[in-house]
């Protein structure tokens, strides 16, 4: 009950606006893929096209090798967990979860059994007779998941399913979502704008921007070796220093021309790429680290963000000799 | 898919609303020869309406009554709706509103009849005033324009109280709080905040009042007597006594034109799909 998805040169135009610009993407069967990007980047449009809620202006979508052109949502091997859950308020949880099976002509007893099984999968056993309004936000989210999974889709589409939950609950649900995906083995395509969420759950992250794919890769690779300035910035904080002719603003560096990208936590007193002496401008204690703004003495107008160890006792005005342990150079 | 669902309603409206109206407009350009309708393009009916004083007077009567009724009803209903929305405790509001409009559910014909009993020569009002010694002769209220206006106002005050209340209760109390916070007095808050925010609702209610009032036959027929005619009474007279369908149609087109003018005058604020 799983299938791969091929997205081939999919373009979506709304009037003169280009929502998706010739997007190509291969998703393997059983993979957990997260589409990540700011609002308006085209990630939800792409999800809607996979689900069949929108037809692309051009290009094609194949699921399990079958072309989905002109196939209605109800006939696709996909189901969706909607952002607002879209639970049917007038039905019990069992009726909600069993709805898809009912549409497929499954008998009431079999539906109820499956519903109970799915509710158990999401940790809501024994609540089949409840109605959606009796549940908390997190519980509704689980019902929506159970309902979408009950018909055993090949591909499950999740449209910012955790967006309405508070931060703590969201982090807890991420782990659960990942565990459930492992158990059912279905291909999950998940849309979010929260990069921490993406890293927590994805096998592979697709960073999107302006209707194009900016970067694709496993979380670790995307964070440490981003392939575009946009994804470098979107995946987390980054210091960007232009390099030209083997020299950066703070001095010579042995890297090719481009933009030197350094994560704040990669800068320390022992780093191998030397930045040189820097003056600390201000510090803020963040719990797990001390966040400092520093200015290299050689380039007093440049500001670098540095994460120093929790225990570092550094005051504004102090001078530290810093270097970068890890870095990437990208084309400007 | 969408077309299939919207088609039945559209076809019904086309067949039983648009088409009949077109047929009526066509008929308004016919004329009578004896008891026979002669079709053609004859503006005679319209010329007659605007030159024959009986007809013109009926149009003027209708307009005067309708404007007075609409204004008086809004002026009386607004405070009533506001008192229910802002003074009556929240848990009693629905009951207060339900009670205020309960007579709305009496039969329309019967309601006018009941006013006849109240306002008649031997009616409750006259008997009460006589026995209190406030008057010596019974007042002539029934069979006058005053009775028609009272009957109409009674009905439309209830209708407008409903619509205005619905608008007032939707307003966030924070609007009034913000206005008060910024130094506005009660009257200023009402004048500059509450009234503008409820204006679309008020205008929509007033427009419905106008449409229903100017086209109503029953109330003036029962309460107004025969001293003066309104447009709908004149139309019914043409249908009944002389069987002059073309003239009745032309009068209806004029009535429709008046309503259309009222529509455009108020269209800026009208919210008919949100009644």
């Amino acid at each position, binding site marked *: 009950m799983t299938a791969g998805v091929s997205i081939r040169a999919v373009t979506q135009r709304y009037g003169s606006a280009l929502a998706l610009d010739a997007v190509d993407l291969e998703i393997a069967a059983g993979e957990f893929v997260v589409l990540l990007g700011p609002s308006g980047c085209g990630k939800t449009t792409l999800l809607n096209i996979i689900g069949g809620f929108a037809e692309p202006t051009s290009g094609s979508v194949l699921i399990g090798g079958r072309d989905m052109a002109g196939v209605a949502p109800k006939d696709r091997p996909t189901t969706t967990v909607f952002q607002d859950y879209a639970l049917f308020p007038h039905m019990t949880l069992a009726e909600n979860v069993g709805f898809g099976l009912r549409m497929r002509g499954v008998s009431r007893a079999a539906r109820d059994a499956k519903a109970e099984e799915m509710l158990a999968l999401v940790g809501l056993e024994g609540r089949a007779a409840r109605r959606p309004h009796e549940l908390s936000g997190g519980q509704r989210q689980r019902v929506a998941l159970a309902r979408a999974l009950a018909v055993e889709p090949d591909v499950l589409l999740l449209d910012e399913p955790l967006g309405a939950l508070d931060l703590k609950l969201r982090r807890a649900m991420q782990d659960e979502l990942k565990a459930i995906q492992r158990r059912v083995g279905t291909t999950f395509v998940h849309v979010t704008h929260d990069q921490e969420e993406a890293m927590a759950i994805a096998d592979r992250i697709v960073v999107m921007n302006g209707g194009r794919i900016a970067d694709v890769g496993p979380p670790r690779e995307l964070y440490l070796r981003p392939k575009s300035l946009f994804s470098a910035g979107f995946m987390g904080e980054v210091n960007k220093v232009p390099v030209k002719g083997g020299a950066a603003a703070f001095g010579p560096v042995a890297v090719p021309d481009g933009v030197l990208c350094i994560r704040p936590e990669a800068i320390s007193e022992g780093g191998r790429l030397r930045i040189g002496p820097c003056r600390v401008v201000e510090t803020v204690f963040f719990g797990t680290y001390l966040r400092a703004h520093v200015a290299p003495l050689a380039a007093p107008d440049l500001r670098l963000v540095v994460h120093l160890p929790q225990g570092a006792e550094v005051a504004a005005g102090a001078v530290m000799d810093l270097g970068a342990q890890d870095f990437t150079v990208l084309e400007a | 898919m969408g077309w299939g669902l919207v088609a039945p309603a559209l076809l019904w409206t086309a067949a039983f609303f648009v088409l009949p109206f077109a047929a009526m407009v066509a008929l308004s350009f016919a004329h009578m020869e004896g008891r026979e309708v002669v079709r053609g393009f004859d503006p005679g009916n319209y010329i007659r309406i605007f030159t024959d004083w009986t007809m013109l007077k009926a149009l003027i009567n209708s307009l005067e009554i309708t404007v007075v009724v609409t204004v008086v009803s809004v002026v009386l209903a607004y405070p009533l709706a506001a008192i229910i929305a802002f003074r009556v405790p929240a848990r009693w509001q629905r009951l207060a509103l339900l009670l205020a409009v309960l007579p709305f559910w*009496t039969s329309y014909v*019967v*309601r006018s009849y009941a006013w006849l009993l109240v306002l008649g020569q031997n009616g*409750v009002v006259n008997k009460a005033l006589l026995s209190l010694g406030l008057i010596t002769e019974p007042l002539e209220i029934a069979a006058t324009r005053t009775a028609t206006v009272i009957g109409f106002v009674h009905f439309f005050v209830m209708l407008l109280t409903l619509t205005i209340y619905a608008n007032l209760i939707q307003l966030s109390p924070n609007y009034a709080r913000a206005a008060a916070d910024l130094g506005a007095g009660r009257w200023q808050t009402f004048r500059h905040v509450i009234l503008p925010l409820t204006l679309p609702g008020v205008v929509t209610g007033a*427009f419905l009042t106008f449409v229903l009032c100017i086209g*109503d036959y029953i109330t003036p027929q029962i309460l107004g007597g025969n001293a003066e005619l309104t447009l709908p009474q004149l139309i019914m007279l043409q249908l009944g006594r002389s069987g002059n369908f073309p003239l009745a149609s032309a009068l209806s087109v004029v009535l429709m034109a008046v309503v259309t003018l009222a529509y455009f005058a108020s269209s800026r604020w009208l919210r008919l799909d949100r009644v």
Partner: protein
Amino acid sequence: MRALSWAYLAVAYAFVFLPVVVLVAFSFQDGRLPVPPFQGFTLDWYGRVLGERDLMEALVNSALVAAVSSLIALILGFLAAHALARVRLPGSVLMRGVLIAPMTVSYLIIALGLLTLFNQAGVRLSLWTAGVGHVVINLPLCFAITYAAMGDQQRNAERAARDLGAPEWKVLALVSAPMLAAPLAAAFFLSVTFSWDEFIIAFLLTRFDVTLPVEIWSMLRSGISPATNAVGSLVFLVSVTLVILLEVFVFRRAK
């Protein structure tokens, strides 16, 4: 200010209830005229009215026309609202306008137009023709109420149902209609009360079988009588019962 408010409220209630109180009170008049002085209490007029065949037939006719025409108006209005709220059709603003339009036209004009049409088409006047007219006046109401009630929540639930494999008619029957149960019931009952009480269309478009308002109208022609008070009180009782049922079972539950 506060005292003035309560005084205004009291006067308003007195004005609103005055005709109803007089109507009901003098339906018990033990005398020939429903005006003061009150001559004693009797239920004779009710007995007489309930025994009158024409009146009881008219009552049944009215109920029938109201129920059937409201049902048709509700179904047509709901389907159209569903389509126009969901699917982006070319000219949907115009279509909304056309569907709402009868609301802005006097009943007299609608009646006269239909009379003209039926005369020309050679259609005999009957309860059916009056019912057609009542659908015309109630369709905009049903359309507007259900259209206004269709929010994002409905839209998303319908989308989810389609996603789970429901064909369009099942989406309508199992998701849209049940979710809109309260506004649909409200639209239906409002239509029923409007149709039940409607005079001019029923007057012009019926011939031998008539509805209750038309029958009451012909009673009025023979002058005032406590019998008319009794009929009026009975109709009021029925309407109020309906309104209270609606309030208790639909609006209370909808909250």
